């Protein structure tokens, strides 16, 4: 029998707190009534082969801006699909490809006519896209299905899908065209169970695809890495570099002060480095290079540039010095926060949440997409400074929502600028990692990070329901246990909460387009809603799936003991988890001990405390899971 404790306390107190926060000071640029649709949110950049045009992928306005690369004037604006994410040019420059991550399509743009000539259906949440050198095949990384789709480049017909890393997102064609390198933003599931099922260091990979056969031929391991973003090659193909996070999730987060929470690094590989890859830190003790995202190597191979979204800088790295360091420091150098002094030539301040990069053919101008400023910084490479700024919208005001989003993505509030909300909530989602957040004590209450989408009406928050509302979750708790440096002012917190509350669930890919259910989903829903087990015995109310996971978000907001607590947990009572897009965010249970949905019941429900399920056959359990995936 489950124990239920309704949560009602604290709401009035928090409302008072929120009011007090709202009355505090705030920057004058705020315009609460402005329309968010006006923001462009430039994410990725591409220069045309002749360098005359700059293509800007604007995620929020869902369009491609075509700029004159010399005058920076807009030539044309081309509408694309929902929440575009990936942008690339065909090798001959004739076609521009845009992946639309929320409607699962690919827009094909004729760069001569500057019109969309085709929109092809692709996989779930398409991200990176690249065409092979022969212009025969297109490769699309699908973030949700964790694969790379291979399409006919002329017709868009999908030939096959190649298994990639979890959250497959970014693709890079090698300079000789023989390989495509795919990276992924969430760590791969643990391959082998350990004694500490919920305490594993993340493992990632670079998936290497042979373009001649369109098959995966290698997977370069990235040990202890989670969150891998863009990858770049030198033009001679001898040096590869990838931007990544190196979380230290096996120690309490209290070690933030000691550089023990996360490092931001590059992995170098290729002939210039040797047979084994080398991991080098971007951080230095007082200035972390938070959230590296875009990376490229200058045409003359003298510099590597890395955009760091959380730090709001572009790192300029001296390649000869870097290689000298890498050759004498094999393996991982993540522990050495003095290392970056050997090769970082400059930290160039740019706009908010810098992402995509593009460099002119002569290597003199570097373009940087500042996603949350709606600007593009143009860096004079010879001087390591911003020479000019392209303003995409010329907005005079900024909305509370945009301010909240800026706060979410910056790392400026935390000690030494180490982390921001987006460090663990990648692209406002999650990171698939379990953490020891330490407020409950070192080694206590290990928790799995969760998806933020759709959380606005799912309080109380935290797995133990300890935070009654989002301002408490994002404010005092975050400031004390994460930032350890600076508090938000009142309106900043209100804006941040506004942004977090605005995060809507992305489209559920397991639901049928016509709104109907598959037979398996129908059977699964019947199991979810049943009140009598297969032996005709009534199932108590608290032991029915549909009781605890009720309502539109799949939670009744109450605490239960479902028999999943560990000796390291301070309490067996856990808030019933919301089910929004549950299929996306393994691992499961409060501490991430269930690697798959199946394990919730096949491994961690021996006494039927987490719902009556042990009377189910294997096919019935499969049906239940098929239904849950539609939530």
């Amino acid at each position, binding site marked *: 029998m489950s124990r239920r404790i309704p949560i009602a306390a604290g709401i009035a107190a928090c409302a008072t707190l929120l009011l007090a926060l709202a009355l505090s000071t705030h920057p004058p640029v705020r315009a609460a009534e402005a329309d968010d649709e006006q923001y462009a949110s430039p994410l990725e950049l591409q220069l045309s082969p002749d360098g005359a045009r700059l293509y800007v992928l604007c995620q929020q306005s869902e369009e491609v801006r075509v700029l004159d690369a010399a005058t920076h004037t807009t030539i044309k604006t081309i509408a694309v699909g929902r929440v575009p994410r990936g942008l690339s040019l065909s090798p001959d420059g004739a076609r521009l490809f845009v992946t639309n991550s929320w409607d699962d399509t690919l827009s094909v743009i004729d760069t001569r006519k500057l019109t969309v000539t085709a929109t092809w259906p692709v996989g779930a949440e398409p991200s990176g896209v690249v065409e092979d050198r022969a212009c025969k095949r297109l490769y699309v990384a699908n973030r949700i299905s964790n694969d790379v789709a291979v399409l006919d480049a002329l017709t868009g017909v999908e030939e096959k899908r*190649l298994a990639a890393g979890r959250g497959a997102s970014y693709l890079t064609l090698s300079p000789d065209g023989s390989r495509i390198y795919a990276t992924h933003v969430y760590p791969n599931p643990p*391959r082998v169970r350990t004694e500490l099922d919920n305490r594993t260091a993340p493992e990632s990979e670079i998936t290497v695809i042979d373009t001649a056969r369109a098959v995966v031929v290698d997977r370069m391991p990235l040990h202890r890495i989670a969150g891998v973003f863009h990858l770049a090659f030198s033009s001679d193909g001898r040096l590869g570099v990838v931007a990544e996070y190196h979380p230290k999730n096996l120690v309490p987060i209290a070690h933030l002060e000691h550089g023990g929470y996360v490092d931001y690094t590059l992995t170098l590989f290729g002939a210039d480095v040797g047979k084994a890859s080398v991991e080098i830190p971007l951080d230095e003790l007082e200035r972390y290079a938070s959230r590296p995202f875009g990376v490229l190597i200058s045409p003359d191979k003298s510099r590597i540039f890395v955009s760091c979204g959380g730090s709001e800088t572009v790192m300029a790295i001296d390649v000869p010095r870097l290689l000298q360091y890498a050759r004498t420091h094999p393996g991982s150098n993540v522990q050495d926060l003095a290392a970056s002094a050997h090769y970082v030539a400059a930290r160039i301040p740019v706009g908010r949440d810098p992402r995509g990069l593009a460099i002119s053919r002569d290597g003199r101008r570097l373009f940087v997409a500042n996603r949350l400023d709606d600007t593009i910084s143009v860096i004079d490479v010879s001087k390591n400074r911003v020479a000019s700024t392209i303003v995409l919208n010329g907005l005079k005001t900024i909305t509370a929502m945009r301010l909240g989003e800026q706060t979410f993505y910056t790392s400026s509030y935390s000690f030494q600028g180490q982390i921001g909300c987006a460090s663990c909530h990648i692209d406002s989602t999650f990171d698939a990692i379990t953490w020891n957040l330490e407020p409950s004590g070192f080694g206590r209450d290990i928790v799995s990070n969760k998806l933020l989408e759709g959380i606005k009406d799912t309080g109380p928050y935290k797995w133990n329901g300890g935070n009654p509302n989002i301002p408490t979750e994002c404010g005092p708790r975050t400031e004390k246990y994460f930032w350890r440096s600076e508090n938000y002012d009142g309106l900043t917190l209100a804006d941040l909460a506004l942004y977090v509350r605005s995060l809507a669930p992305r489209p559920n890919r397991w639901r049928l387009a016509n709104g109907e259910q598959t037979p398996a989903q129908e059977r699964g829903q019947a199991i979810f809603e049943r009140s009598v087990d297969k032996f005709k015995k009534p199932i108590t109310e608290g032991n029915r799936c549909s009781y605890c996971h009720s309502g539109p978000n799949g939670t009744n907001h109450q605490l239960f003991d479902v028999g999943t607590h560990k000796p390291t947990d301070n309490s067996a009572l856990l808030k019933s988890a919301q089910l929004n897009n549950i299929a996306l965010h393994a691992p499961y249970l409060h501490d991430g001990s269930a690697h798959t949905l199946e394990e919730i019941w096949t491994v961690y429900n021996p006494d039927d405390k987490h719902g009556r399920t042990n009377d189910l056959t*294997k*096919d019935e359990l*499969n049906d239940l899971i098929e239904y849950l995936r539609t939530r």
Partner: protein
Amino acid sequence: MKKLALKTILIGAAFSAVAPVYVVAQAAPATAQMSAQAVTVAPQKLPRFRFENFTTANGLPDNHVYSVLVDGERIWAGTDNGLALYDHHTWKTFTTADGLAHRAVLSLALDKRTGDVWAGTMGGLSRISGGRIDSFTQLTSGLSNDVVYGVSVEGENVWVATAAGGCRLNTRTGQWTLYNERNTPMNEIWVYAVSAAPDKVYYAVWGSGLLEYTQKTGRWDKYDDPDGENEIVLFKDQGLIHEIVTSVSYVDNIVWAATYFGDSRYDGRYWHNFLTKDSGLPSNFTNTIKGVDATHCWFGTDRGLAYYDGTNWAVYRPSLKDGKPEMTVRDAAGKVTPVTVTTAPAHNYILGIDFQGNDIWVATAKGLSHGIREKQ
């Protein structure tokens, strides 16, 4: 019906004069049951091989080899102690430490589109892709049972034969669909093998005949031994030779089915059965079968490796008498001719077969054999 049915030798007309009774005699020798129209074949017409054998002495992790898979120039061997890969003349072994679901690898299949290898083990299903191994078990996934006897890849679907029914994994959606006594005409759920193609999928069910799934309609059909579980054959070529089906191979719209009591060929309308007494099969106890095309087929028995070219038979094995390499050819007239050979498969107990051009690879109970086709 989980126990192995006893051998039965039935002699004489059981029912009527128009219904001759065929004798099922597992241990019977391949005697000459001749046909008046038969044409004698020269022994050199049938393929001859030089067998190179691999054991633990030259790199294999275990001599008990359940399965073999040709992947271009690479050879995968599923052994009792890991999955072995032969590449550039060197063996590499994948174990549970690498993520393999279980050390004993019973079955293998290649996804020719992606290059991924699927391995059915005694502890789940594993995918080997670009060196990474992802495993699926009955606890961690929708897999019906951890004992995976057979696996076959068709398009984006992976079809699996397990000790608790069959199942299908859609690699695009991640959805598992289970097939068992509740939704198919499967009386027993001990499924030994599966052969999948875009039009049909066949399950070899131990004790429940042969199941056919039509992809277009989603319809199941079942082929049983017309003589039921009696170890008799009342009418030759009337239907599936026996209910205990151990292996199936669907190629060129032809089903080749192996049982422990003889083998069958089915073209969608007519059955043709093979028994030791009226064919060149060295034994009715057949572990594995693999069709080359609609006419040619290989048989892995407990008494050697056999080849059928539509008319004639060849058997390759260490002699049952003295263990010396042996090859015999049986023509359509039933004439058995020995062929002088200097090599043979590593063991008579054959568990797996695959082709590499004109060569053949054979998994046996005591080693893996590479049959290198000789010029004739």
